[in-house]
């Protein structure tokens, strides 16, 4: 009997939702478990890093890493798993695009540290003690990983073979990906394992979108009574579905929330945020500067809106610190 392919899961800077999504495979997970040999999954099973180090290079068939890369430890693990795996898969929006953690790329490291360890309302730290990367006591040395200045996508650290998009990826897409891995029926390296057409294509509200949208104002979904059947853009609410790869079956829209873009751009686009910005602002109705600015003021935080998940993967990547 041929050996079952070895599979590994690992998480970096992530919320844990992606791990959860693996469990969401529900009964199918048994099929998967039957078909593969899970050799490393710290969240669920007790493996040690040394176990992985001991494996021969390239011996793991596929590793799925979720989460963005923020610390030196994550970098190290990414490298290690890269070395040990035949296929490395960026699992979920954070690994693929930076995800929500990458919104921190708008702030300098010092500011983050200061807030988290000193200023946050729930912190009581009068001595202003900050974590040290190295601490020695009684002759024993404890280390902590380095906290990087930049949040990175997985492929900004190591080479990635495939991407499974989503915050988190849907069980359907995961099941398909696993099947492809098992059968070897794989698309070209570097592919995103989801359709290359924007979400509107599969959105249940697509037909309700008129051909003549001209934005007179942008409304914010939590402040607006919304029609549950009408395309969000037709109601003046920013929906990233136009600029976001489909494949999620428009879960958010079905749940009456506009798409926020977690599946990332299509392969034809270099910068998801720039594209959605381009489309939305070009369709503003006003012609005079003041009117245009007034309408666009309805989007108070362009970075947070257009790069909710994609800041690390964007062309500018990170806020340049101002002099």
């Amino acid at each position, binding site marked *: 009997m041929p050996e079952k392919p070895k599979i590994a899961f690992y998480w970096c800077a992530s919320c844990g939702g992606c791990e959860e999504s693996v469990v969401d495979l529900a009964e199918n997970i048994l099929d998967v478990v039957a078909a593969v040999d899970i050799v490393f999954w710290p969240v669920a099973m007790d493996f040690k890093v040394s176990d992985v180090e001991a494996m021969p290079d390239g011996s793991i068939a596929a590793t799925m890493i979720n989460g963005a890369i923020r610390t030196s430890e994550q970098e190290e693990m990414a490298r290690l798993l890269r070395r040990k795996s035949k296929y490395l898969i960026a699992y979920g929006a954070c690994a693929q695009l930076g995800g929500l953690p990458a919104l921190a790329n708008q702030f300098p490291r010092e500011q983050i540290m200061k807030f988290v360890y000193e200023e946050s309302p729930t912190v009581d730290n009068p001595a202003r003690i900050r974590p040290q990367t190295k601490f020695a006591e009684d002759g024993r040395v404890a280390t902590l990983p380095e906290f990087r200045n930049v949040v990175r996508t997985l492929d900004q650290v190591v080479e990635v073979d495939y991407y499974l998009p989503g915050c988190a990826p849907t069980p359907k897409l995961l099941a398909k990906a696993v099947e492809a891995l098992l059968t070897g029926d794989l698309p070209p390296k570097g592919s995103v394992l989801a359709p*290359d*057409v*924007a*979400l*509107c*294509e599969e959105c249940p509200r*697509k*037909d309700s*979108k*008129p*051909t*003549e*949208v*001209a934005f007179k104002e942008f409304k914010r979904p939590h402040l607006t009574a919304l029609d549950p059947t009408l395309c969000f*853009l037709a109601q003046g609410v920013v929906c990233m*579905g*136009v*600029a976001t790869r*489909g494949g999620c079956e428009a879960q958010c829209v079905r749940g009456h929330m506009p798409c926020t873009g977690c599946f990332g*751009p*299509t392969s*034809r*686009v*270099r910068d998801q945020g720039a*594209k*959605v910005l*381009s*489309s939305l602002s*070009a*369709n503003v109705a006003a012609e005079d500067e003041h009117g245009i600015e007034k309408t666009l003021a309805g989007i108070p935080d362009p970075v947070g809106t257009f790069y909710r998940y994609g800041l690390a993967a964007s062309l500018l990547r990170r806020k340049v610190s101002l002099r």
Partner: protein
Amino acid sequence: MTGIPNTDGNGRRGAAGEEIRIGFYVCHCGMNIASLVDVAAVAKEAAKLPHVIVSREYKYMCSDPGQEFIMQDIRENRLNRIVVAACSPNLHESTFRGAVARGGINPYFFQMVNIREHGSWVHTDAAAATAKAIDQVRAAVARVAKHRPLERRRMEVNQAVLIVGGGIAGITAALNLADAGKKVYLVEREPTIGGHMAKYDKTFPTLDCAACILTPKMSAVREHPNITLWTYSEVTKVDGHVGKFKVTVRRKPRYIDEETCVGCLECISACVFKTPKFEDEFNEGLGKRKPIYIPFPQAVPPLVTIDPETCLKFKTGKCKSPCETVCDRKAVDFSQTEKTEEIEVGAVIVATGFKAFDVTRLPIYGYGLYDNVYTALEVERMVTSSGPTGGEITLRDGRVPKSIGIIHCVGSRDKKTNRWCSRVCCMYSLKLAHLLREHTGADVYQFYIDMRCPGKGYDEFYERMLDEGVQMIRGRAAEVTDWTMSPEEEGKLVVRVEDTLAAYVRRIPVDMVVLSTGMEPAVGADEIRRMFNISCSTEGFFLEKHPKLAPVETATAGVFIAGCCQGPKDIPDTVAQAGAAAAQALALIDKGYVEMEPNTSYIDPDDCSGCKSCIPLCPYHAIAFDEGSKKAVINEALCTGCGTCVASCPSGSISQNLFEDDQIFSEIEEVLSHV
């Protein structure tokens, strides 16, 4: 358009799979370039770039030997891409594309770098200018490697022209084109052509009789073998594009057979209504007509029309229909139904004219409240000898006016109604002053803000009216009332106005008030605008392509505009513009084909999500949503290649020939490769 063939339609060598071999040429332009830019260094750097097979410099690239170089290299070195660094592409791009094509490769495998106008002529530092030239050359070389073969498109042009609106503008354009031998379809909404001009007695500034100059033209339209005249008809649908518009025309039933009716009008006299009873639209409601009527005796076509709204046969079904029996040609046909005609034309002239301002919007002038307040159009009909009063000026109460006030700018130059100056009312007010004085001998006051009489003979006409004793009061009439303060005002209408030149507020009692209404876009102009993809200015008049240099063209190729639908104007200007529109349409169709640049955009249907974001952005309405595939589709014939939609498609599903994303990205990359 998406596939990359190995050869183009003319058998010239193409791209896919073939090794890319670039020839680079830098021009000295005598000393124009070489005196500042180190052309030798440019050539040397270019030679190092990927795919560059030959890199040369030459004194005058645009000269015959310069071009010959390129052609020779293409042949001898099997080049398939050419870059020339010289002057502005606006000057010589077509020259070199020609050379490239003659050399045997597709002319769009060419890129030009401007190192003269944007280089040697504007800079002073030789090293910096050379460095800049090299950067731009790198960009061009990188870009040209990504070029694809393209073809200029040629489309056949249908030889017929559609004209919408049969006022003096439409009539003039129709006759011009028909005389040039082109087939013309003239579609008019009303039962007769002639438009507003047919309602006037005299026209300024020459005071010649309107009928005398208009009716011969109307008859000429009817008789012209090249003109198909459809009155009582409207355009309902337009498809296609320049050279090939498919137009649907709805022809309302007039319940008279057009072929057999000879216009004897026996039927009208026979109608059971012995006296006319219904409001006569042509006479601005001043006269009455029967349910079976002809707008005016010289109407073209000279056909009667039955109005089903008032005809007893239609209302009650109980009429004996003497009209039907009296007609010995059996032309009355109650069974007629609406017809639709479908035609194909190469060009369209829209000449739908104007509508007079609705004075009930300004109750301050008392129209409708006081019997003796009239609109200018009503007065035009009154002074016409064939009009409802037979040319008599009698007020609604039967009196002949002894004093008349003419109020200018009614519904013009007023932000509350219409901001614009209607351009003709100063002049026609003077005309009406003259005619009213001629008919009644009354004192005439003109209440004006500014007299606008620019035109040949116009100011002279103004002067003539002053000499005739028309009283000119500079001030916008503030109100018209029947409120009196003194015995001489009793029984009169009082115009309260500041005579701004005297700086006194005056109360002027008159017997009759004439409101000089301004012009507004015609009823239904908005539908016409949508059907023909014409833009309009804020006030709703159709927008010309350029206010000075293309006053009869529109943003939609092949659609022209003439007359008051473009903006207020008088008859001389209308006729001039109609002639210009006819000439433009003729120039377009007579050539037989239109040729277009290939830099159009296209949507890959596999990529498009059908989000419709791009559709409203196209200024030419070239993008449509295909309801079958649920994707957006660009009509290449309408696309002018601005690229706006390309920059906007949020999923990157639109590409533009010659300005593909990756071509531009490679330019960006290369101009920055040294930083």
